């Protein structure tokens, strides 16, 4: 029964959900292979693809598909609660993004295109490798949680996707403001890309996990409000 349900949910999510992170990593790696073979640039850019691009993709996908169902009115009449279904969907997306990120980071480590934060540069293995995974894990959890909350609050897939993109572009564009202001560190998503020598790298990653947990609690609460799930902004997709 459970396996059947998992298989059904996976089919419902569709191939694009699973192909998106793979295409992002492969496409970016190919661009780098063609354009620039400088080790430092490739290491920096691939690190950025794990820290920026994959979490962004996961956030946009979750905002778009995790909480939308054409048969939601029917689902809400069933004994199985809708939040279980929504949680399962966003967990699939999150897990798949995590698998792609983990494999990519392992490949980067093996091929020496590995950009390390100075703080953990002299740590022993496997602690260094494991701690490095916070590079993508914290950003991914944060953006996925934000995507979930936005899609539930705004009930517009396009607007949720747009706001995630805007937030990320703002972090990329104003990275020096986020770097220099300690008040903004708990929401500074991309320190490895712009400031790998930051002394607060590990604290920042843990703070991000904390703020993501707050967003998940908010999403958990919102998913239990049928009125909110049934509301839909006019003219929205």
């Amino acid at each position: 029964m459970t396996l059947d349900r998992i298989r059904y949910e996976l089919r419902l999510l569709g191939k694009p959900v699973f192909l998106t992170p793979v295409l992002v990593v492969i496409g970016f790696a190919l661009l780098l292979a063609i354009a620039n073979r400088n080790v430092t640039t490739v290491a920096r850019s691939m690190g950025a693809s794990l820290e920026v691009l994959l979490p962004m993709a996961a956030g946009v996908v979750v905002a778009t598909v995790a909480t939308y169902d054409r048969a939601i009115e029917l689902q809400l009449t069933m004994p199985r609660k809708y939040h279980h279904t929504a949680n399962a969907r966003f967990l699939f997306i999150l897990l798949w993004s995590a698998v792609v990120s983990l494999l990519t980071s392992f490949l980067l480590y093996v091929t020496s295109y590995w950009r390390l934060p100075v703080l953990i540069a002299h740590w022993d293995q496997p602690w260094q490798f494991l701690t490095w995974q916070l590079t993508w894990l914290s950003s991914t959890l944060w953006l996925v949680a934000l995507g979930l909350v936005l899609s539930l609050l705004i009930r517009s897939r396009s607007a949720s996707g747009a706001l995630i993109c805007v937030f990320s572009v703002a972090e990329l564009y104003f990275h020096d403001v986020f770097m220099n202001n300690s008040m903004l560190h708990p929401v500074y998503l991309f320190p490895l890309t712009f400031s790998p020598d930051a002394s607060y790298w590990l604290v920042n990653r843990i703070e991000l996990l904390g703020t993501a947990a707050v967003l998940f609690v908010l999403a958990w609460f919102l998913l239990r409000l049928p009125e909110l799930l049934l509301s839909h902004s006019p003219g929205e997709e």
Partner: protein
Amino acid sequence: MDSLKIMWGVLRYEFRMQIRRPALWLAFLCFAFLIVRSATGMLDNPYFLQAHLSALQLAASLTLLTNWLAPLGVGILLADRLSRDRRTRVDELLNTLPGTLRTRLLGKYLGTTLASLTAALLLHLVVMAFAIWQTGNFLLLPLGLLCYGVIVLPGMLFVAAFSLACPVVIWLPLYQFLFFGYWFWGNLLSPHSGLPTLNGTIFTPIGSVIGAGFFNVGSRGGTGSSSAVDGIASLVALLGIAILVLVALYQFLRWQQARQ
């Protein structure tokens, strides 16, 4: 005459539908906070003040500053228009009505783009009002509008054409994500970053080449290095590509209709 009336009707309806979307205003409200923050930083920057820009150059610099984010919102909020018609099956109903596909497509493009541009123009006016308050120069308002027409419009029409067309063949969230990636890579990433980028070429919809060519200003308040010919080439290229994309979209939809 009939097709003109039909197009006007489609345009009016699409305009109203887009302008009444709370999501559009919510997104541009968020942009306003970020852009006013950028404008404050720019106007307080001593290097910027030392550059002794004329009123026209100041208006052009502020227009470029507004334009780093607004097309992202316009592009993403336009991307779901055709896919929504498909999902709600309205497209099948519209096919049975008088009026050609070309008329409906053009009306939809102009209506949704104009509505999104209304929000973007309001954001631009907010930034101009802020600059007038800071500098006391009221000439910035008409000059700002002139710069908006020259620098922003070609890029917006380019972005709008792609955003309407691409989601017909690409999954919507993937397009949104790719558009974000393209916007950062092709418009904001420095050409000296080590990665090849379209930034600085005539295919830059953010308007930096047009701004540098016509007003001698760069995208971050500095001076630009492009000539007036580059500016004209960029303007023509952006508008020409937008028309080509719309023609390709029309041909694709007609082919799709013929297959049904």
